[in-house]
């Protein structure tokens, strides 16, 4: 156990929090500040790096090291930091526009490499900071300022994308469910390598109520399929079954036998199962799996980088500058 005992207050910076009233970011921030003492790390060992967007103001409000960088580039910047400083706990704060649109390339490559980053993707399905244009996760047909006749783009599933990018840890949670959010943060923190957490987050100004059916007490239990390792995947009314082709289907509990329900296994190396899970939900949010889709062991990038350097030094000896400069074919002029 750690010798450091810190509290939520220790992780709260002196900066005034400036999100819109009712923004889902508040509850995520509060959950994070409460969770951070659990890491057992001194504050100076923790770094938050964000891109651009409403959520990317997050680092300013945490009493750790932090960088509010540029649009979409946080995973790249954080990779450089995490690789060169494996002693740090590096977190990336990003949104659906930041991570999936302008920064999509960096996200998939950070996940592919298994860079030691915990990436929190605040998905509100809208561009908030630029005042309400459709995002890469907005449902098709969405009416926004930039799509007055409805958006034509097919949305991304961040979970499917991350799995396609070889992510070793992928999870989904909801801003308003503090307990589940904290559990998910904990699972991500314990994972070695990249962790991507999609957090459904309400934007009260430009996309209010987007996730109401998974938040309202009268509907959520029917909608949420809670993923717990080793447990059957069910909501209050439905269960997930596998058909003869291995595809997953959601059926009313009344129509299926308990023994048919898929038992969740987050540790399957092959991502096919997790991907199938990720396809259960679509923009309609009729059935939404939340929890850890995938959590498998794979050597983190920084470990590989430093092991390679150590192996070269063990084999060739530590580099000597004079020897390097005097290498190759040399000749003496008297």
């Amino acid at each position: 156990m750690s010798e450091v005992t810190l509290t939520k207050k220790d992780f709260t910076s002196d900066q005034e929090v400036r999100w819109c009233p009712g923004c889902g970011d508040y509850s995520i921030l509060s959950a994070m500040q409460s969770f951070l003492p659990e890491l057992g790390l001194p504050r100076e060992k923790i770094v938050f790096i964000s891109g651009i967007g409403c959520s990317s103001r997050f680092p300013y409000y945490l009493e750790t090291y932090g960088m509010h960088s540029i649009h979409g580039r946080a995973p790249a910047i954080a990779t450089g930091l995490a690789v060169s400083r494996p002693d740090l706990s590096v977190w990336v704060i990003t949104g659906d526009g930041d991570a999936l649109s302008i920064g999509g390339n960096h996200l998939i490559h950070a996940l592919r490499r298994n860079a030691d980053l915990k990436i929190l993707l605040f998905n509100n399905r809208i561009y908030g900071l630029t005042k309400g244009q459709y995002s890469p996760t907005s449902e098709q047909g969405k009416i926004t300022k930039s799509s007055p006749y409805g958006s034509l783009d097919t949305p991304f599933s961040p979970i499917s994308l991350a799995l396609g990018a070889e992510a070793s840890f992928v999870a989904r949670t909801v801003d308003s469910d503090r307990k589940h959010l904290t559990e998910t943060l904990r699972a991500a923190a314990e994972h070695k390598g990249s962790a991507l957490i999609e957090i459904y987050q309400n934007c009260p100004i430009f996309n209010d109520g987007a996730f109401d059916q998974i938040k309202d007490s009268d509907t959520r239990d029917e909608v949420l399929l809670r993923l717990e390792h080793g447990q059957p995947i069910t909501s209050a009314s439905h269960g997930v079954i596998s058909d003869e082709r291995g595809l997953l289907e959601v059926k009313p509990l009344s129509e299926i036998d308990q023994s048919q329900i898929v038992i969740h296994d987050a540790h399957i190396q092959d991502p096919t199962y997790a991907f199938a899970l990720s396809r259960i939900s679509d923009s309609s949010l009729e059935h939404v799996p939340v929890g850890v889709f995938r959590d498998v062991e794979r050597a983190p990038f920084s470990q590989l980088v430093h092991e390679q350097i150590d192996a070269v030094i063990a084999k060739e000896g530590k580099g000597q500058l004079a020897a390097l400069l005097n290498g190759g074919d040399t000749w003496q002029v008297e």
Partner: protein
Amino acid sequence: MRVSKPVVTLDQVVIRFAGDSGDGMQLTGDRFTSDTAMLGNDLRTLPNYPAEIRAPQGTVPGVSSFQLHFGDHHIQTPGDAPDVLVVMNPAALRANMADTPRGATIIVDKDEFTTRNLSKVGYATNPIEDGSLDSYKVHALPLTSMTVGALAHLKLTRKEAERSKNMFALGLLSWMYHRPTTLTENFLTAKFGKKPQILEANLTAYRAGWNYGETTEDFAVSYEVKPAPMEAGVYRNISGNVALSYGLIAAAEIAGVQIFLGAYPITPASDILHELSKLKKFGVITFQAEDEIAGVGAALGASYGGGLGITTTSGPGIALKSEAIGLGVMLELPLVIVDVQRGGPSTGLPTKTEQSDLLQAMYGRNGESPCVVLAPATPSDCFDMAIEACRIALEYRTPVFLLSDGYIANGSEPWRIPSVESLPEIKVNLATVPNGENGEFLPYLRDPETLARAFAVPGTKGLEHRIGGVEKADRTGTISYDPANHDFMVRTRAAKVGGVKVPDLVIDDPSDCAEVLLLGWGSTYGPIWSAVQVLRETGHNIAQAHLRHLNPFPKNLGDVLHSYKKVILPEMNLGQLARMLRGEYLVDVVAFDQVRGMPFTTEQIVNAALEVLNV
């Protein structure tokens, strides 16, 4: 092996090897260069190859060449025109005849001058036979068939045997110019040691070429070029990209920081990534990023963590990195941006040289976004300027551009290896304790002398703070949209970069009364220096000065410019530095521009200077 034929002594020679991209001309040139360097000649090289890895065989666009200028005196250019042209096929002859002066020696592989190959490049008749080369000294040799013949005892297909014809040519040239053979033999042994048959083929062809020169009556004499007088010391031959890589390693060693190179492959900068990737025993982290932006982003992240973040690229890559470089300006973090310039705009001329990214480095970002800009003058100067770039980046906490170019990156010259003790000091001075009056940490409190901000890296206890690309309040670094603060911070960042201490510009004017100054920057040093020697030998007084610091300029630059009647400024762009000098000092410099993808020749600069001198 010893040469037995009569020997003629020359003071300098320019040799150009030219052939198809697949003929191994770059390797042949490299080997001849190494052997020449070992003999103590001074030298400069000019590799020149197409962007296509294998352009259609036997065509002019597929021609690859390597020019080497060596002599018994100080050599600063690869030579204006070849004294000896070695051509492996008709396309190589076609592509290089325009540069080759009458009287030059041309060595031709006549086996390749078939009707089909000739017609491919538009020769109706064979130039070897039709008299069109009568004013040259032509040696038309059956290089291919002699190579195949020499390798007959090996079990090789004809095609495999033909591949060694470049070694036959190298052997012949090595005989002609008395180059030592052991180095190349050792090189081949190291390169092909695991493939004994290929090794045997190359060694046999190389020796056969040498023996051919020694025995055939076609070559009556051989030549020697005595060593050039050079400062005492240990030397090696080095290209700009390798020197630059070593400079980065040296700077990190001196400063005691870890290099993090974030790079995306791009010609002609990739060799720096290759070189540093080999040097992991120095603790170097090389990160081949998913794109140019990630390369600089990751480097910036590593700098934020206390490392030395470096990104290497060429012009198109800089365009992509601009926003992240601006973030580096705003965060005031160390960052070294190496731009090995090539012909632009857009993809431009990937394998050809140009100096047209100066204004991009200076101004190619949104907002008032000052960066330090440096430029090495020669291949070996890349070593010193890489250290200088790292020093300024680390000490002032600022992005620094290092503008190399394709010519010095790939060209090489002998380099007097410095002692490690002679290298400059680099002081990083990280913040470790609070610096505010109330025990707080103020990340934007500045060193009064350098204006560098206080820099505490993650992991430093008690100095936790946040920085970002949004404008920051002076001292505290918290977000500020205050108009007066923004005005102050913009001016402060400009003052910091403007105040970077750089050495005064040195003037070379033995006459001490020259009225015309030949000014240059970057890789034009060689041809300008050579032109100045020619002009002085012909009785002209002319001064030379060369800028290696382009932002900020040396403090004495204005005075220097104003003290000459005329300032001539050759640039491989359309007058980018000229524009800066006119703007900064109101001096109407005489711009002499060229964008042909090739370095200036000495003659071009002599003629440009004469136009001014003879007025």
